[in-house]
């Protein structure tokens, strides 16, 4: 492990430790405030307890094995523990966010939010045309947004708002303070997922495009859980029409404009930092992305009242215009960064593919360069390969693009992996090619 890698992992471990302590505190406060439903909570928490037991058992077994096997067991123990934590937080979230209207309305709200959120994820996943992020990481980011981030913020925001309401003059000043707390705590809680991916999964985090994809996925997850919370609450107060309107606003109108845009800004900053040489530049890029996200979120929450809604049919138009006017500019900024990032990535992909083809190593052939450089041509080539060849050629193309990206990062001195890793990748490509005949 290189010094750079070790430093990143230590920072990630420190962050994970702090987050774990914050989640334990949040969980304890949830338990105290939800004391009227301990039995249901305990019952639904049992699978989480079983997973913790499993993690302990696998973790203990790790000590009985040689160092070579130990890492595999440790990985399993860590995964089981993370799953247990996620499950337990989900249980708490379900009670915290849905107790207003009962489980039936909560289940219906969740079902209604699933299709738009899934569509949002599909779109976000397709943003990176050259090398799509693995679904498992995109879904981990979404789960973080839905479960971990919501658990992290609920008490921080509640305590801050309790202080504000007891200290400030009610009105726009108090509204602005509460808006700032929402922007600060929520963007910190969501953005830390992208930061952890940046620190730990460097080989799947290439540039600004990847940062935007992971950030938007976290935002969609957060929006999913928040939508359910608001829908159940409004249903309990005003009935299903209010819940339905909330669904439309958050899951249709605001799907890409709200949380997805805010956290995509965090991701953009982190993605740009991924390719900057100096620590100072990296820290500045990350801070600027984060500040942008907090400011965008703050502006929406604080200044919503400056766009009051009328009555009647005109309200429907006003609702749409309000989202477009207030969140639209920030979404446009994300799109501009995305387009700039895609151009840089695409340009370098073509250059590195051509260089690889010129090297004569056989991993990329000269006639393949133009095909690999274009997503549309890659698709046409896969379709032309027939049903059996489609997936085989897809694997080959992905490996070739991964090699080109690895070459790009190595040229820019952004890689921790030794030169042998590149050679191994070439070997794998040659294997895939020979397997295809």
């Amino acid at each position, binding site marked *: 492990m290189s010094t750079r890698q070790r430093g990143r992992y230590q920072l990630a471990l420190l962050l994970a430790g702090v987050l774990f302590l914050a989640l334990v505190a949040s969980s304890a406060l949830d338990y105290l405030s939800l004391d009227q439903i301990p039995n249901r909570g305990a019952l639904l928490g049992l699978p989480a307890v079983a997973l913790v037991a499993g993690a302990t058992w696998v973790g203990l077994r790790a000590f009985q094995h040689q160092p070579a096997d130990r890492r595999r067991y440790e990985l399993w123990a860590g995964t089981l523990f993370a799953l247990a934590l996620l499950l337990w937080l989900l249980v708490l979230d379900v009670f915290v966010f849905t107790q207003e209207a009962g489980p039936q309305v909560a289940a219906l709200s969740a079902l209604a939010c699933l299709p738009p959120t899934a569509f949002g994820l599909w779109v976000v996943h397709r943003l990176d045309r050259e090398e799509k992020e693995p679904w498992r990481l995109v879904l981990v980011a979404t789960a973080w947004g839905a479960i971990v981030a919501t658990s992290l913020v609920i008490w921080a925001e509640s305590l801050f708002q309790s202080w504000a*309401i007891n200290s400030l003059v009610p009105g726009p000043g108090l509204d602005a303070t509460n808006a700032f707390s929402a922007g600060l705590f929520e963007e910190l809680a969501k953005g830390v997922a992208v930061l952890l991916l940046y620190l730990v999964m460097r080989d799947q985090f290439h540039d600004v495009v990847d940062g935007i994809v992971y950030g938007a996925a976290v935002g969609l997850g957060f929006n999913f859980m928040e939508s359910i919370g608001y829908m159940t609450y409004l249903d309990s107060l005003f009935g299903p029409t209010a819940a339905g309107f909330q669904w439309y606003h958050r899951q249709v109108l605001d799907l890409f404009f709200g949380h997805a845009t805010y956290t995509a800004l965090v991701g953009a900053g982190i993605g740009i930092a991924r390719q900057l040489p100096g620590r100072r530049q990296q820290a500045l890029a990350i801070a600027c992305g984060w500040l942008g996200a907090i400011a965008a979120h703050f502006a929406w929450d604080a200044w919503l009242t400056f766009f009051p809604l009328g009555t009647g049919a005109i309200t429907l138009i006003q609702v749409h215009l309000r989202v477009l006017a207030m969140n639209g500019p920030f979404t446009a900024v994300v799109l501009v960064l995305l387009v700039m990032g895609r151009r840089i990535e695409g340009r370098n992909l073509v250059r590195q593919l051509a260089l690889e083809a010129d090297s004569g190593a056989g991993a990329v052939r000269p006639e393949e360069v133009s095909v690999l450089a274009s997503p549309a041509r890659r698709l046409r080539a896969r379709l032309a390969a027939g049903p059996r060849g489609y997936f085989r050629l897809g694997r080959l193309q992905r490996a070739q693009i991964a090699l080109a990206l690895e070459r790009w990062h190595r040229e820019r001195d952004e890689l921790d992996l030794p030169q042998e890793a590149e050679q191994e990748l070439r070997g794998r490509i040659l294997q895939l090619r020979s397997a295809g005949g």
Partner: protein
Amino acid sequence: MSGRPDEILPLYRAIKLVGALAIVIFLAGGLEFLSFEPPGQATGAVARIQGVYAYDSDSKSVTGRPAGHFSRGQPFAAVVDWSSIPSGTEVAARWFDSFGEVVGQAGPGDAGTMTEAAVPVALPKGLKQNIPGTYLFVVERISHGQPVEVLARRLVEVERT
């Protein structure tokens, strides 16, 4: 960094611009905060809220003992001892529901001339019961038509059931 160090620079500049825009937004937010929460307004004056009581809207009077929790169907009102505020002070009293909407008000006016025996919470339009959640009652000092200092505040809870 070897290779082409300048190709990321446009992105770096763009994200710095995002950071600068964020600072402008925070400054605007800070100005907004200061204009509605102006510093140096604390006079040290304190108003006395006698309590929050169940309210009979027919007789327009409070009943029973002061309470901190009410059911959704129970109207309630705050009783302020206006004489606890120095005469000549312009004041108002307001109720806010859990959405931050004003749902009851007395004043603004000179504390010496305020006569409202109770400040009730009004039902939101179209609703037959109060919205559940935390309600905030404040007695505020007004300056140039704007609330600038909270002289007293009280929180009550409207139960869900």
